[in-house]
Structure formats: C-alpha cells, structure tokens
C-alpha cells in the first residue's frame, strides 16, 4: 500500500484528468487522419447525356489527377431538358484535399463555351 499524503491527491487528480484529455484528443486526431471521407460535387451541363459522358472521359484524363480520374462519375438527365447532371463521388483519407467543384466548373465551361474563361 502506497501511503500518499492527502495534500498530493488534488495534484494527481489534475494530472490524470489532463492525461485523459490528451489521449482523447490524440485519438480523435488519429481517427480523423485515418477515416475515409466521402466527397461529392455536382454540376448541370447544358448538353445531352451522351455528349457530356464522351467529353468527360477525355477531360478527366487531361486533368492528370489519378484520384479524380478514379472517382465515380454519374450522368443523368436534368429535369426540364436543362441538360445533364454530372455527379462525382470520391473517397479520400483523412485531411487529403481533393478539389471537386472547380474541375467540374471548368468542365462545364469547356463544354458550354469551348474554353475556360480567364481575366
């Protein structure tokens, strides 16, 4: 039996609580780093589905981002003959950045106007 002086008990309790908080934070961080996150982005392109799908395959290769090229892409008709909805879904691990919206926006610009506008 260890005989602890009563005066040291509060200090030990504080240290134990601090350690517990620290371990919890590390755990949360690790979980965040290791977790696979689902990211999605969608855009409507004013062109028919077959044309959009055909142009997407060339476009995604041009991007040169393997992760994007391997993302799941779905094409569906937009309501009211507004064109084609392009929905892209990718899974990334932890804090990895994978921009989806901007490539989609550039794709839409290219299909609809023939270029990516610059200022």
């Amino acid at each position, binding site marked *: 039996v260890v005989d602890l002086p009563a005066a040291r008990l509060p200090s030990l309790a504080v240290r134990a609580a601090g350690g517990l908080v620290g371990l919890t934070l590390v755990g949360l961080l690790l979980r965040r780093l290791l977790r696979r996150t689902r990211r999605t982005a969608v855009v*409507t392109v004013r062109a028919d589905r077959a044309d959009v799908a055909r142009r997407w395959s060339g476009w995604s290769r041009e991007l040169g981002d393997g992760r994007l090229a391997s993302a799941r892409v779905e094409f569906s008709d937009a309501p009211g003959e507004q064109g084609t909805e392009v929905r892209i879904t990718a899974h990334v691990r932890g804090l990895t950045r994978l921009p989806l919206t901007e490539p989609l926006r550039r794709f839409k610009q290219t299909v*609809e*106007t023939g270029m990516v*506008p610059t200022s």
Partner: protein
Amino acid sequence: VKATCWLAPGVVKVREVPDPTLLSDRDAIVRVTSTAICGSDLHLYGGYIPAMKPGDILGHEFMGEVVEVGSAVRTLRAGDRVVVPFPIACGACTACERELYSVCENTNPNAALAEKAFGFPTAGVFGYSHLTGGYAGGQAEYVRVPFADVGPLRIDSDLADERVLFLSDILPTAWMGAEMCEIKTGDVVAVWGAGPVGLLTALSAQLQGAAKVVVIDRFEYRLALARAHTGAETLNYEDVDVNTALKDLTGGRGPDACIDAVGMEAHHGTPAIHAYDKVKQTLRLETERPHALRQAITCCRNGGVVSVVGVYGGFVDKFPMGSFMNRSLTLRGGQCHVHRYLRPLLARIESGELDPTFVISHRMPLADAPTGYSIFRDKRDDCVKVVLAA
C-alpha cells in the same frame, strides 16, 4: 496604354499598364472612345466592395472601336463601333438562354469566391473587383472584351457616343428597374435617388406608363433635373417626412411600386441614424447602409412591388421583414441583364423617344479620372454624371 487604376480606398490614378491582348479566340480588343464613371464605381472607390487589389483597372461603362478580334468572333470586325454591356455573358448557359445575362454561369473566373459571398456565383463584370472575375475595366485607352461574339452591340448609325454610351449600363439598368414593377395604367411609382440611374429610372417609368412618378433625394440640383427631364414630382427628404408626403400624393394608398436606385451607401435624413449605420458599416458590423431600401419597403402600398437596382454587396441590418411579409409586398432586384435591352433601347434612342444625355454634368479627358471620381463622390460642382473621353 493608360488606364484608371484603383490603388486603395479613396485613391485612383491613371497609370501606364500593359497593352491588353487576345486571350481567347472569342475575345476582341476595343479602343475606348468614351467611358463613364458609374455610381457603383463609387462603392469601389470608397472601399465598400470586397476583393479589390491595388492596380485593378476600373470601368464598366464604355464604348469604342474594335481594333482586333479573335478567330471565332464572326459578328464583329476591326473598325466596328460598339457599346459593350457591363456583364460578361457566354450566351450558351441556361442563365443566358433565359436572358439572365448578369448571372451567366460561365464567365466568372473567380466563381468560387463569389459562391462563398452570395451562395451562387454571378457573371463576370468589367472592372468590378475580383468577386466578379477580376476583369480589367474600360476606363482605359484599350480594353479586352471577352465573349465579344455575345455582348457588344454594333452602332451603325452616326449617333454621338454620348447618346448611346449609357446602353452599357445605366439606361438598361434604369429600364429594368421600372420593368420589374410591372407598371399598370394609373400606377404611382416612387424612385429613391436622383442620381443618373434614378433619373433614368423615373424617365423609364414614365415611358412604361406610370401615371405619376415621384423622385426622392436631398440634392436640389438633382431634383430639379428630375422635374425638368422626367416629368416627375420630387420630394426632398431633408424637408419632408417621406412616408407622410407619399401618402399625401397617393390619396393615402402609398405608391404602387417603389424603386431603390440608391443602394449600399444611402444617406439618412436624421444625422444620428445616419451616423449609427455609418459606424456599423465602417466597423463591418453590416456591409450596407440600407436607408433607402428600408424606406421604400415601408412606404410601398399593401401588395405593391419594391424594385432594387441600387447595388448591394453583402448584408443589411434592420431589414423591415415584418412590413415586407405582413403587407404582401413583392421584392425584386438584380444586376441588369443588359444584353436583353440593348436593341430595344437603341431603337428608342434612334427614334428620338429616349435621350439619356441630360444626366451628363461633366466631360473630361481620361487623364482627369481621379478628379472625376472625387467630385462625383463629394457631389461637388453639381455633379451628376462624369463622362471620360479616352
């Protein structure tokens, strides 16, 4: 080439900048012959619009002569005289198909930035911050015009620049402001602001059939212009209680439509209230001083329309939501879809029905643009509208 550059809030200078070049086969280069300072340029000048960078070239109201076109531009050729709309539209997206050109889905290279600010991006605009794309403006000797096969209107007649220059912005903006009110026979329309857009809005409302138009401002020289050129009655809000006066002019009903042609830097007749909002705006606790908008809402008759063409950039405080909702008002607004109005308004100018030149108070060379900004902001020398000849 020489261009009017924004350097910091309250500081613009005319500087030498690199010559604009074709960046796409749908571009054109235009030699600017006339350009104007817009009331909304003063929001940039004052530092109220975010995402400006030192050196940005100002100006979204301009016209000139085409000197070079990209290979895909079939509608223009060198030597053509053109007026250029301030929104840049692709002509191919769903918004353009619906003639909502100022919300074109493709022409804003900084769409992500605008999306953060507004929820969805808006079109690119010449010389109006990086929020609208960071395009170089037309207060310059030369300017690059993207999507030149969609926007510029060729002027084939020999009408002077001044007669057609305002097709680039303020005339269509004014027309749209009135049009959004869906004016019917017998309607009374109140217009807040007797600046260039307010004056042309009053004129547009008359032409669209309003029985009576009332213009509200505090500068007597501007109200005199409204009376002389638009047939409107006027109210000086420093002399009268606007709500009471409008009720008096409308048999107690209130105007059928109220148009805010003032926007984010409105002045309040009560100094304490004006100071309150100015302090909040300066501290960025709100981005606007919406006095005109608040008053337009509370003065409008039950079931009426409030049309907003004055420019707002962010968030307003103390918006009279209770009045708006409980009295069945309709609120409409928008940056002008200029392309939609170019030809019909040009026809009215050519026929002599419309002459917007009465708003011009100052003509000066491009080199004097800083002076133009200063006197326009301070309303010195009875300034209403400054036109710069490049």
